[in-house]
Structures are given as C-alpha cells and as structure tokens.
C-alpha cells in the first residue's frame, strides 16, 4: 500500500479506537445528533411521500376539469355546455361528471360518491372501495344504507368491492349509476357536477382553457398540471415551514456540538499533547479529528435516516402526521409507499452534517495546534 493511503488508514484506526475509549461522551453526542437527523429526515421523507401520493392520486384524473362558478362558489353546471365546449378546436372529448361528498354520521367518515356509466353496475347497487368496506364492515352481497337529501335512508346492494390495487385512489369511493346519484342528492336532469375535458394534444390545454373562459365567463377550468403544481408547492411550503421551525432545534444542537468540541476533556487535551510530542504534526491531528467527526456524523446520519425511514413508512409518521396531513384531499388510512432518493438524502446531509462540521472546525484547529512541548511542561 502506498504511504499516504496507509497514513489515512493508520489514523482512521486510531480515531476509531479513540472514539471507543471515550464511549460515554461520544454516545451522548451521537444520540443527540441522531435525534436531530431523525426528526429532519422524517419530515423530508414524509413530505416527499405525500407529494408522491398526491401525484399518483391524480394519475387517473382528467387533464382538465371545467366548473361553473356562481357567486364565487362552485355550482352544478348545465350538461348542455359540454356540446359547446366540444366544439372548441383541439378538444377531443368532454365528459359531464356527477359526483359529491357524503358524510356518514355513523362511521364519522367523508365518502366520495360518484356516478359511473359502466353498464355492469345494476340499479340500486353500488361498487365500494376497500376503505368503505373496512369501515362499514360489509362485503359483497351485503346491503348498505345511505341517507338521501330528504333524510330518508335508501338501501343499496354491494355488488362489488373494488380491488386492492387501486386502494389509494378508490379507498373512500362509492360508485353508483347516474340515476341513483341524482335521486340521492336531488340533482335535476341536465345538470352535472363538472365537465372533464380531454385534449388531443395536452400542450394545447392552456389555449383551450383560455377559450373556455372567454366563451363562458362563469366557468373555471382547472388543469391537472396546475393541481399538481399547487400540491407540490403546498407540501414544500409546509415542509419548509417545519424545517424553519425546527431550525431552532438544529441551532441548539450546533451549540451543543460546538461546546462538546471546544470543551475537550483534560484527558483528551493531554493525549493530543502526547501525540504532538511524539512526532504527530498539526495536519495529522486535524486528520485524526476529521476522521472522528466523520465517523460520528456518518453513524448519526445513517442511524437517524434509518429510524426516520421506519417511522415514516412503517409507522406512518405518527409523530407529526397531524401537522402536515390534516387535509381532506388525502385519504385517511393507508401506509405510505417507501421512497428514498439521493436528492432527499443530499438535502438532509446539507441540513445536518454541514452545520455540525462547520461548528467543530475552529475548536478542532485549536486542539490540533497545541504546542508539542506542552506535554513536557505539564
């Protein structure tokens, strides 16, 4: 082995043995460090996973939805407008949609009711998502009761429970025939909740949207890409806000690290003095301290990241679910899909390891430049 490499190895070996010799002290440091990484990593992973969920949620959503606005509020729109919109150049398909929310007082959950044109679905029957089946404790062939607009219960036969694979999208979904939806919600014929618009070329969507607004000033077209962008921005913003709030914790950790590094124990100071006196140079001691810091940082970083991974993806981020989720767009019961990417790890590394390293530089330098003759004068 070439000498420089061997030098790094020798000093790394000694750094490890030094760390082990001062177990108690270093363990305390690593624990606090790990905790800081853990909380930040949980946050970053969680936000990332939510963004991903939101994206997947929208995969099947229409490219553009047109809503009608009355007095600044969303209102059912005349299905006849679909024809007028279909006439716009570039529009491929316009589908009136019929859907709404249904609050179930018994189970305390908000369900999504949607009409489907699938003819396999019989009248007075429903298809339900896994989440609905779970909370209502029903299976195929059972009956469920939904309260109509007049307060009267209506019975529906569960014809099918939607397959597991689409749970994310359909967990709280109840599908029924358009006629049933209308009678349950008292929606007159000729009105739709909104219109789903598909364009032949997705790049033309903004132009089509502009034309729709021009022709029907009381409508609001919403592009899927805009919803996505809004979700991303909101999740980033929330995550960022949490990071800022959390910065105070990081700051106190840095002060702690600074204090640890500055307050070298008498024993450690003496040891560095000995090393210097027997032929170690400042650069060698700097390397030793660098290795020690690297081992501590790496241990804490890996530990914190692994714990956070388990926390977010196996325990559904129990610790701050409420701070970040708490939004009805996302469905209440699912396990986040594990996702880990280099970018998130790099960001975490920047937010935790860099401040620690920077905080310890000056104390380390001070320790390393002890006079070699100090050991002789003690």
């Amino acid at each position, binding site marked *: 082995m070439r000498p420089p490499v061997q030098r790094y190895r020798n000093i790394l070996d000694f750094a490890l043995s030094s760390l082990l010799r001062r177990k108690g002290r270093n363990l305390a440091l690593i624990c606090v460090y790990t905790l800081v990484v853990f909380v930040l990593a949980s*946050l*970053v992973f969680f*936000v990332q996973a939510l963004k991903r969920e939101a994206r997947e949620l929208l995969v099947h959503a229409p490219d*553009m939805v047109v*809503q009608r606005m009355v007095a*600044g509020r969303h209102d059912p729109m005349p299905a006849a407008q679909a024809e007028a919109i279909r006439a716009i150049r570039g529009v491929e398909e316009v589908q009136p949609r019929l859907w709404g929310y249904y609050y179930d007082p018994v189970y305390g959950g908000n369900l999504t009711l949607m009409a489907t044109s699938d003819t396999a679905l019989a009248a007075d029957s429903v298809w339900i998502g896994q989440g609905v089946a779970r909370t209502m404790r029903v299976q195929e062939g059972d009956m469920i009761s939904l309260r109509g607009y007049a307060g009267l219960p209506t019975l529906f036969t569960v014809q099918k429970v939607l397959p597991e694979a689409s749970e994310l999208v359909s967990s709280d979904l109840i599908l029924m025939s358009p006629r049933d939806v209308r009678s349950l919600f008292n929606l007159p014929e000729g009105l739709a909740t909104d219109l789903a618009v598909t364009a032949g070329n997705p790049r033309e*969507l*903004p132009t089509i*949207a*502009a034309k729709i*607004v021009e022709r029907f000033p009381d409508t*609001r*077209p*919403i*592009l899927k890409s*805009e*919803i*996505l*962008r*809004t979700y*991303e*921005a*909101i999740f*980033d*913003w929330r*995550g*960022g*806000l949490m*990071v*800022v709030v959390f910065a105070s914790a990081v700051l106190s950790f840095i002060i702690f690290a600074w204090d640890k590094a500055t307050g070298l124990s008498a024993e450690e100071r003496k040891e560095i003095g000995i090393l210097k006196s027997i032929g170690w140079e*400042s*650069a060698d001691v*700097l390397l030793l301290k660098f290795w020690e810091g690297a081992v501590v940082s790496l241990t804490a970083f890996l530990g914190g990241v692994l714990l956070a991974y388990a926390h977010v993806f196996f325990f559904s981020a129990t610790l701050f679910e409420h701070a970040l989720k708490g939004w009805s767009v996302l469905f209440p019961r699912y396990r986040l899909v594990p996702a880990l*990417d280099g*970018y998130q790890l*790099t*960001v975490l590394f*920047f*937010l935790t390891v*860099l*401040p620690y*390293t*920077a905080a310890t*530089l*000056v104390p*380390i*330098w001070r320790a*390393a*430049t002890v006079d070699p003759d100090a050991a002789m004068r003690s």
Partner: protein
Amino acid sequence: MIQHPGILALLLASGLVSLLLAAAGWQGFRILRGWNLQSGSDAQLDLERRTYLVSTLVANALVIQILSLFLFIFTADSLHTQFVGAMCAAGSLAANPFGYPTLLAKLATCLLAGVWLILHRADTQGRDYPLIRPKYALLLVLVPLVLAETWLQWRYLSGLKADVLTSCCGSLFGQGRQGLAAELAGLPPRIMQPVFWITFGALMAAGALLLRARRGAVAFSLLSLAFLLVSVASLISFFCLYIYELPTHHCPFCLLQREYGFVGYPIYGTLLGGAIAGLGVGVLSPFRARKSLAEALPRMQARLAWSALILAGIFTLMVGIWMILSPLKL
C-alpha cells in the same frame, strides 16, 4: 420565496461557505500583514498556526461548494414542476435573471478554490513558506467572489415564485411565460464538433510538450480552461443528443438524473477536476524559480498535468463511446 427544504439547504450551505471563507480571508489578511519568517516571536508562531486554520477552512468550504453546485442544479430540477413551461432545471434557472449567473459564479468559485488548494499544497512543499504571499492574495480574491455568489443565489432563490392555483382564477398562468419553455439550443454541431476535437487535440499536444520539454505550462492551463468551456458547449450542442437519443433535447442538466443513469456525475466530475488540475499547472508555473521549490514544483506540475490529461481523456472516452453507440445519428 419557495420554502423548499432544498432551498433552505442551499441557503444554509452558501451562508456557511461565506462564513468560512470570510473567516479564512480575515486570517489570511492578518498573516499577510504580520508575516516575518525570520522571527521566532510568539506572534509569528501564532500566525504559522493560523495557516493551518486557513487551509482547513478553505478545504471545507471547497467541498461544501462543490456539493452545493450539484445540489443547486438538483434543486432547480426538482422545482421545475412549479413553473409553467419549465421542463427541467434549464427552465427553473431561467425563472429569473439570477439563475444562470449563480450557476456560473458557483462554477468559478469551485475552480478558484481548487486552484487555491493546489497553491497551498505547493506552499507546504517548500521549507520557507515560499508561496505565502501569492496564496493569501488569491484568497482575498476568492472571498468577494464567494460573497457575490451567495448574494446572487439569494436573489435567485428569494425571487422564485411558484405558479400556484388560486381560488379566484383557475388556469391561465401560461400566457406570456412561454420563454421558459424555450430549450437550450446550443451552437450547431457542424461547427462545435470540429471545435471540440481540435481543442482536445491541442490540449493533448500541449500536455505532451509540457511533460517532455517542460515548456508551455501557461498555454496548457489556458487550454484546460478552454477545454472545459468547449466541452460544456459541445455537451449542449451535440453530445447530449446522443446520450438522450433525442435530436432536440439539449439540456445539460438532465444528464444528472436517474433516467440517464447519473452519467452527468462522472461527466462533470472529470471536467471540473481536469480543469482545476490544468489551471493548477499554470498557476504554479511562475514560482518554479523559487529555490526551495526547485525540486518539488516540477514534480507537482507533472502530476497535475497527468491528472488533467487523464481526466480529459476519460471524459472524451465517455462521450465518444456514447456518440458511437447511440442509435441516434445526426
């Protein structure tokens, strides 16, 4: 401003780098002013101890700076979804006029900090601190540059505004922001191809001359820098097209993405490393006459020149292989 965790990380990193380098610059200034090697006074001994502090600070700042160069591109890429019309990092960087200047300033500081460390390494080879003055003078150039970069980045990041849905109006941001979608087109391959191969050939020739006859160090350095610039221009102009296998995709940033196997890292890593080593050769050149470096310096220059040549060779080999194997033919 967008409170994206990546943006916070970048601001933190540039704050730290500024702090470290400002501290290093201040120490460097004190060293320049009080240096007197002949004296064995406490003050001089203290200054000599401080040289260790300065080199530690700069080395750490350089590492952070290089990492944040990549994080910057990465963050720009991850933000592109929030701007209408931005397809990748190229679009995000164009979101306001400070994006590209920040990137260039980051690149420049990385190069300069690398050169500084080479100078520092050479300085430690001589027994009378032979390069103490040029070294700290360069440091005093580096500090304002880094501060400027921090300011640029702050302007860029704080000026970012996501195109977010508001409840009053739905769509229609897209209007008037078409500029972002404009792809980086680059220079025509017909011109860039010969320019690239000529620069590569010239660099190799200068390297051979330097290693055999020990002449032309400065020319070699200038060619190294030219090679970096020409290579980036060539990546945009035609190498990228082969890698993406798309005749219109010129973006030099998407190379860093998973879709392309992170090939951007070795590509830019070799370019950056080669440029730093190549610049180092020329920067060291004026000091060959110093007696205490008479032996160490030519050896170091040769090693740097070899590194620059090998890295340039690896880069050319990589992009060349892509060019040959790619199903795309221009």
